[in-house]
């Protein structure tokens, strides 16, 4: 009989119609402003600056090395070095940025700044509700707005963050061990001291004997 296909189709749409009221599972639309899907771990939108500890400006990992500014394809990063240095996580004095601005209206979310950063200081965020009424100032964010704690980063990108944290932990331990060794060594000649850090890298895999006592003491400290 002709026309049966049409009737079948009509029944199907009628079933959809009735089903959408009785079975909420059918309505897969996300009602966006009220409900949001959890972001996936690999989502990346705009960069932010990572800091350690509680004080954002003191714990900023950025050392104002200008690599990201130079590498940024649309040149949306603007950095001014500060004259005052501050100690980094291993206690070494580093340059810090006086100004660190990103024009997120220009940023194209390529993530090159993240790839080139040698200090794990700049990472990709997952925020996306960035629209503002202010056309010029509102999208130019400075370092106080960009700075976000490491815990936030851990929350966003768990896998990546745990790797970075492990590496940094290791470096810190090595630095502390080196400092302890330095403190323990009674006034060695100044000549071998600068030569020591390059030797530390291979030494990390197979711990040399003079550093072993320092390691267990330093390990619990950052774990707290």
């Amino acid at each position, binding site marked *: 009989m*002709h026309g049966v296909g*049409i009737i079948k189709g*009509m029944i*199907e*749409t009628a079933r*959809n119609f009735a*089903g*959408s009221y009785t079975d909420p599972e059918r309505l897969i639309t996300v009602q966006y402003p009220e409900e949001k899907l959890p972001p996936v771990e690999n989502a990346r939108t705009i960069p932010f600056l990572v800091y350690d500890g509680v004080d954002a400006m003191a714990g900023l990992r950025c050392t104002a090395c200008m690599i990201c500014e130079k590498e940024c394809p649309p040149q949306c990063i603007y950095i001014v070095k500060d004259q005052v240095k501050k100690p980094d996580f291993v206690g070494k004095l580093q340059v810090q940025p006086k100004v660190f601005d990103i024009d997120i209206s220009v940023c194209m979310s390529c993530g090159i700044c993240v790839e080139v950063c040698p200090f794990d200081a700049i990472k990709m965020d997952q925020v996306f509700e960035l629209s503002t009424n202010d056309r010029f100032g509102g999208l130019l964010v400075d370092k106080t707005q960009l700075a976000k704690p490491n815990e936030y980063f851990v929350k966003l990108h768990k896998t990546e963050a745990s790797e970075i944290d492990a590496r940094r932990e290791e470096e810190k331990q090595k630095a502390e061990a080196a400092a302890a060794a330095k403190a323990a060594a009674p006034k060695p000649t100044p000549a071998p001291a600068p030569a020591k850090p390059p030797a530390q890298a291979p030494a990390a895999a197979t711990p040399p004997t003079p550093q072993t006592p320092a390691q267990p003491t330093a390990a619990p400290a950052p774990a707290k």
Partner: protein
Amino acid sequence: MNGLDQVFVRLCHWFAGLFPASVQPLIACIVAITAIMVVFASCFALTTIVERKVLGRMQNRFGPNRVGPWGLLQPLADGLKMLTKEDIVPYSADKTVHFLAPLALTVPIWLAFAVLPFGRNMTAVNFNSGVLFFFAVGSASELAVFMAGWSSQNKYSLIGAMRAIAQMISYEVPLVLSTVPVLMLAGSLSLNDIVAAQGTYTIGGLARWNVFTPWGLAGLLLFLIAATAESNRSPFDLPEGESEIIAGFLTEYSGFKYALFFLGEYLGLFAITGLAVTLFLGGWHAPFQWLEWVPSWLWFAAKFGALIFLFIWVRATLPRLRLDQLLNFSWRFMVPLCLINLLVAVAWYWSGAWKSVVAMPVRWLLCAALIALPYHWLGRALRSASQSPRKYIYAE
């Protein structure tokens, strides 16, 4: 007659009674016009939102639900958007014709509502050739579509207009032919008489609507298909097929003129739905005798709403036809079937005189077979015509 049934008629008389006797007919006219315009304009607003909601639900979406409670204020927002938009007239357009086209589409369609009986004693004008009037004013919309398409000086507009006219002319034939059995058996062209002819009840209290006969059912289906094509709705929405020719004859229209076209299309749909209700579904009569106490205009509104829902349902279900399929369907299937339906109505009329116990089922079977067999054959012929393997003209 209970009071609720005649409440609008009484209101109109009361209002006209406030004026001196010489202007009373004029006032009654104005009241009727205002009532029709207000009711159907708000019906238009309501239908746009209901259509979008129902389409959404049929596609497992929510549909618009942002403006107001459950999105009910969406038509208001749409209307405001339309009216505040810039009215752009193309540089090379024929300005006068471009301006007149939306008016030429909308004004005749408002006229068509004048003859529809919305309830007991609720017909604005009772022409004794009401059906002819309806089709006459309906045919003016073809010229308006042509004016819109031609004056825009745009290829898509012209193609859309040509498609629309070809489609409207092709489907006007089955549209008119499918109403002929009703007119023949009612013996009148007046819509009031047609409604009155369906106003009696058979044994069991079932109404004698035309749709409860074999020819009436076939006629209603043919009429609804032709009406879908006449009002350019999916699956016959080729004139404005978005995926092919942007928006057809509406391409160069914006703002208020576009809104007028939109209004005109929906009003055309309402008018033709009202006609379907009147001709086949017994107008404002109740389906069962024991439901007579419900006000007549409520019955009309219920049937009207059900048919509008059917149109939306079909739109959600069926994909768009190709132009050759569309024309073949009209000329090879609809028109012959309408003519055969005429014969079936004649057979029904003659067999009405049979006085026997088995007469009723035999009559039914005979008429149903008379319409079902040609349906089958014509459908098979159409299928073999449209499903022949596609021939490539240049590739072979």
